[in-house]
């Protein structure tokens, strides 16, 4: 499969979505709304749930199912209040010593007047700083699109996993082609050059694991999550944070 085919596959509306994963992997999910500062961003759905009996906090990007929901959720592109809601849930998880699971599928942070007025950059920056130093284990899974800073704001984690056909990129191939070559038709070249596939990113050690996509994907994710959380829970808080820092620290040099 070529890189551009992979890009289209990652956006396929029939893929399993983060919200479906909430329903299938976890039990006892209780949704919590709002960032307590401005409003509630439906592009991010979060709450508490159980994973194999263990309480966890779950944060999922919600692109929406039908067109009405998609519009209400801005097609899964969060506003600053979405990132602030996610951070609130993470801090709450830290207080009650619950691990955090982030399920990501977004084209990127929303670009619009309101998003800029309410500090999209500041909201993402805040998440990057705070996630790096959370006292609890964090696992982020990219299930479809991993769009730049908008995805990274939920992916400063002890473990970053990708479904086999997910992508993770600094810019969309369309954006890259139009900026660099002033030609949106050169998306194939852009997709190839950006090295955005799960195989590429695992080889760069930018992600930690690829989850194969087959009939058993959901169960596979569940088993691996349980296993990894058991392992991460044995680490003391300082080691956990130091390891997380070191993991990102060595990227690119």
């Amino acid at each position, binding site marked *: 499969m070529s890189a551009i085919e992979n890009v289209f596959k990652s956006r396929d509306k029939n893929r399993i979505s983060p919200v479906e994963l909430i329903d299938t992997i976890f039990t006892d999910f209780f949704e919590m709304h709002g960032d307590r500062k401005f409003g509630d961003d439906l592009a991010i759905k979060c709450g508490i749930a159980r994973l194999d009996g263990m309480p966890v906090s779950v944060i999922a990007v919600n692109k929406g199912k039908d067109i009405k929901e998609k519009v209400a959720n801005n097609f899964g592109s969060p506003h600053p209040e979405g990132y602030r809601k996610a951070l609130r849930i993470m801090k709450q998880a830290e207080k009650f010593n619950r691990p955090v699971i982030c399920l990501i599928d977004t084209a990127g942070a929303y670009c619009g007047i309101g998003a800029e007025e309410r500090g999209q950059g500041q909201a993402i920056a805040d998440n990057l700083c705070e996630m790096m130093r959370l006292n609890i284990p964090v696992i982020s899974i990219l299930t479809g699109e991993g769009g730049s800073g908008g995805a990274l704001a939920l992916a400063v984690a002890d473990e970053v996993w990708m479904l086999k056909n997910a992508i993770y*990129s600094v810019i969309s191939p369309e954006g890259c082609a139009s900026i660099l070559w002033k030609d949106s038709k050169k998306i194939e070249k852009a997709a190839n050059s950006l090295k955005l596939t799960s195989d590429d990113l695992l080889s760069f050690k930018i992600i930690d694991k690829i989850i194969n996509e087959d009939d058993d994907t959901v169960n596979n994710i569940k088993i691996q999550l349980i296993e990894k959380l058991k392992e991460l829970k044995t680490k003391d808080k300082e080691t956990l944070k130091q390891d997380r820092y070191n993991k990102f620290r060595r990227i690119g040099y």
Partner: protein
Amino acid sequence: MIEKNKFKKPKNALEFDLKIKNIIPVVPDNMYIICKKCKATILAQDFNSNNSVCPNCGDHYRLGARKRIAMICDENSFTEFDADLISKNILDFPEYDEKLEKSKNISGEKEGIITGVCKISGNNCAIFSMESSFMMGSMGAIVGEKLTKLIEYATKNKLPIIGFTVSGGARMQEGMYSLMQMAKTSGAIKLHSEAGLLYIVVLTDPTTGGVTASFAMEADIILAEPNATVGFAGARVIEQTIRQKLPLGFQTSEFVLNKGFIDNIVIRNDLKKVLTQLLNLHNAEVII
């Protein structure tokens, strides 16, 4: 009695001469510049000695990273770090090698950021300054690495950090390596902050994208130069997304000040004074 011819315009001998000899008066190249904003003709010398601020209307032009350091640091106090770290085409991205080469020639710098230590009115500081003429200050792996090394040095040596940002965002030619620099630098800033140390950033034109969404917005005190572009998404991208024209003054320093995201706007010629005041305030002993 007023003599009749006293106020009569004298014949201009010089003009007369030129006409005869057919000489056209020539101004030496680069002697004057015209301000893009107020259209005033200014002596280049006056413009440069005024730190690239128009002496007539006060419009701030972009200033090179090294000139900025010279403007802020005490004389001969700056020591540069990691000057030899240079970007490689890690992804073998098309045309990236040529772009790097071109940027080096245009900017006279090896990378889009200069880092080091200095004194500002006697206060020891770690300092970074980004270079707009090097691929618009975009953040690749080396920009992230140089900055992270500086921040870690500052944390270890208990130094405040003074930073000048100018950036178009992440450097897409380095793909995900560039995006990860946002997490890396943010982590280092967080550790510096946890150590109780001061970080002051000055946003200059333009500060956008991944830099806005990381170390530009993570300082204890965020200042900006007047009328600098400050935002996350590019204005053109927003216009294309929402299909409407953006309001005048959108994503400027004044706009982000009004929305509550920066502490103050400081004109360039006051920056050293203001930074000195803030550093001194943080160095003074608190007696309760």
